[in-house]
Structure formats: C-alpha cells, structure tokens
C-alpha cells in the first residue's frame, strides 16, 4: 500500500525546493554583481527594475533566445550531455539538505512535517558522490568541444577537483567523528548547544578553502581562467547550455554553503528567529564570503594550486583527523 500523503508531501517539497533554489540561483548572479560592484566602488546593475532587480530575468530571457551553437568538430553527444551532467547533480544535492526542523506551517498541518526532502542516513556521502559526479560535466564539456583551450580547462578542472575533493572530504571527517553519524539531521541535532566550528576551527577553514576550489571560483577558477584559457571548458558553449554551467556553479555554491552551515555552523539552530530563517542567514553569510573572496584575491598559479592541495591541505586534514581522534580518546 502506497502512503499517498507521503508521496504528495514529498512532491510538493521537491517542487518548492526546486523553485526556491532556481530563484536563489538566478538572484545570486544579481547579488554577486551587486556585491562585486560595491566592492569596486561601482553600483552594479541599476536599470532593469528597481536597482537592477529584474536583471536575472532579463539575462535569462536573453540566454533563451540566443543562438545555440554546436561546433562542427565537437562530439555532439557529449557536448549536449555535459551541461546536463553538471546541473543535475548540483540540483540533486538539495534532496538531503535539512533546511529546518519539523514545521506545522503555522498550525496548518496536523502532523509536523520535516523541512527536508529526504532524510538519508548517508547524507554526506551522497552529497560528496554527487559533487564528484558534477566534475564530469566540466571534463566532458571541455573535451567534447574539440578546442585546445577548453581541453586545457577540462584537464585543469579534473586535476583540481580530484585533489581538492580529497581534502574537502578529509576535512569533514572530524565533524563526522564528533557527531558519530553520516546523517545530516543528526549532525545538526548534535550541534544544538555548541556549533562544530568551535571544536573544528581548522576543519572549517579548510572546508571553506577546499569548497571554493571545488566550486571553481576565484581564486581557484583554473578551469575557466579567462586571461589564459579564454573561458576554459565552456568556451564553445552558448545559449542555455552556457547558462546551465553557470546555474550549476551557483547551485553548487548554495550546496557548499548549506553543507558548511549544516556541518559546522549548527544548521537551523539559533535563538529567537524561526529555524528556516537562521539557516538562510547562515547560508547567505557564507555566500557573501565566497563573493567577497572572489572580489579580493587574484587567481593562483596552477602549480601553486596543486602544491597547496597536496602538500598543505591534505596533510593538515590528516593531522586534524589524528588530533581529533586523540582528543576524543583522551576525553572519553
């Protein structure tokens, strides 16, 4: 017997989360342009709507009506597959992120409904697996275009993502050791009194650095590297295919920020305000940080990037796990 209320609730939640994420993705472009503009003492978009608020919609319409070009020598199948392959994992990660605790929607529902689509007991593994899958989009996109710049971008992208994914995953292990669970909801519940960032400050900083590298954002945007590789892996993409790469990048930005919130900043916990608001505040502070970093630092050289990844990040992450284990053993 199928529990229809569960199906309907899940469906509604999927639609709502999808719509919210797409809206956030669209308006993140606006936020990014505004923040970077103000950091450079400019104003950013101003003319489409009040303070440029309709700019993302205008951009979207423009990208929809652009000519969709597929290069003659491109591998057509992979060329079309690549943007899809980068956006779908980016959106799928939102299935396990806990946005809040149980809610009754101001007493509208009889039984409190959890504010998450699915409660997976291997939530973190699921997210990292999808993040790993997302890097195929970059690799295929760069390779299939049959363009040397795109290929260079894809090569760099794959190398960077493999090396930083390792450090990213290792930096999270400390948190998993403390909370003793891979379930994101249980990790958040374990932080009710003290956030994990207090126990794991090194891991938090490492997570942010590796997260930025994983997102391919400045200062680690080697796969794009406008000044050297034209636009890197998406040099030959146009129209909505190009937009999908960008939507994936911004969706990944929200994922990394919400995962950092969940793992280190206590998720939805916070005084006075409702859980969802606390979650959003924390996520947007982290997203602001990512944009702020982008506006501040220049791009690192590729060999320096690899050196940082393998010779600094991975050893520190391993040392962090060791110290965490040692302290836990001594305290218990």
């Amino acid at each position: 017997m199928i529990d229809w209320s569960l199906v309907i609730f899940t469906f509604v939640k999927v639609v709502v989360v999808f719509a919210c994420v797409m809206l956030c993705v669209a308006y993140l472009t606006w936020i990014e342009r505004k923040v970077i503009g103000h950091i450079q003492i400019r104003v950013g978009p101003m003319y489409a709507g009040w303070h440029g608020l309709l700019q993302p919609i205008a951009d979207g319409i423009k990208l929809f009506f652009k000519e969709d070009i597929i290069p003659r020598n491109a591998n057509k199948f992979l060329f079309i597959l690549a943007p899809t392959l980068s956006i779908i994992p980016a959106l799928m990660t939102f299935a396990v992120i806990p946005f809040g605790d149980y809610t009754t929607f101001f007493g509208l529902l009889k039984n409190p409904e959890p504010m998450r689509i699915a409660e997976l007991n291997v939530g973190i593994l699921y997210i990292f697996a999808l993040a790993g899958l997302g890097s195929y989009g970059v690799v295929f996109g760069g390779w299939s275009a049959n363009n040397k710049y795109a290929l260079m971008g894809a090569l760099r992208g794959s190398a960077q993502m493999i090396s930083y994914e390792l450090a990213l995953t290792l930096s999270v292990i400390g948190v998993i050791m403390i909370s003793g669970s891979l379930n994101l909801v249980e990790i958040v519940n374990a932080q009710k009194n003290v956030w994990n960032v207090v126990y794991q400050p090194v891991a938090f900083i490492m997570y942010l650095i590796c997260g930025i590298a994983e997102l391919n954002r400045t200062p680690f945007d080697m796969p794009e590297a406008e000044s050297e590789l034209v636009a890197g892996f998406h040099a030959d993409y146009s129209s909505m295919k190009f937009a999908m790469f960008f939507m994936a990048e911004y969706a990944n930005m929200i994922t990394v920020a919400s995962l950092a919130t969940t793992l280190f900043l206590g998720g939805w916990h916070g005084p006075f305000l409702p859980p969802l608001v606390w979650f959003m505040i924390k996520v947007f502070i982290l997203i602001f940080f990512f944009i702020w970093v982008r506006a501040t630092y220049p791009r690192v050289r590729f060999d320096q990037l690899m050196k940082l990844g393998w010779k600094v990040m991975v050893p520190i992450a391993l040392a962090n796990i060791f110290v965490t284990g040692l302290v836990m053993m001594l305290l218990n």
Partner: protein
Amino acid sequence: MIKPLVKGLWITLKYFFSKPITVHYPEEKVGSFPRYRGLHIIGRKPDGSIKCVACGLCEAICPAKAIKIEIGELEDGMRYPKTYILDGWRCIFCGLCQEVCPVNAIVLTPQYENAAYKKEELILDRDTLLKRGDEVKI
C-alpha cells in the same frame, strides 16, 4: 602569509561599505570644463547679422578639410558666407578655425554630447550654426 590575505579582505570590505563613485550618466552629468573643445557655433553681430566675413582662413587652415565656404558679397562690398558647411564627422575639434578667425565668428563650445543617430544631423550649415549660436551657451 595569513596577514596580507586578511588585510586584503579588510580593504575590500571597507570599500564595500563606502559610497560608490558612479555617476548615472544620462540622469546625472559631470559636465565639461570651460576650455573643452566641442561642437561649433557661429556668432552674430550686435545688429543680428552673421559675424563671419567669409575670409576663408578657417577653410584653409582646417587640417581635416571639414569646412566648405561659398563667398557672397553684399551691395556695400561686405563679404558674407553664402553657404558655410561644417562637417561634424570630419572635424577633429582641434580649434584651429577658432584661433585663426579674425572676427571671432566661429567658436568651439564646451558642449560634449555630440552623438547623433544620422550622419546628416552633424553636417551643419550656416543657419544651423547661427541657430546653435543663439541656443548653446559658451
């Protein structure tokens, strides 16, 4: 290594909270400086007739060959420009015509918004230049 990174973040944060220096151009204008050399005018004498005596010096000195004059003569022997065509597209705004003019008839204005949709809009004849002289403030 950490200190300069934090310093950089601090500087950008400081600028984030400072007031933007953007001038919203079509709504706000900076204006031009008094000695800016923009599109020309031709002045009038106190009695309202054209100042220009059609000596042809501006036509001769113009490095871009933007000025074409046809000379006319009144009954009392005064010369005046029958046609005076200034091609605003050819003009390089060097100001030599103003410098060479013996009667200060042709003057460059500080007006800097000289874009036009059609080429013809910037080919100025005698009457247009005179009218501009009445309208544009120097």
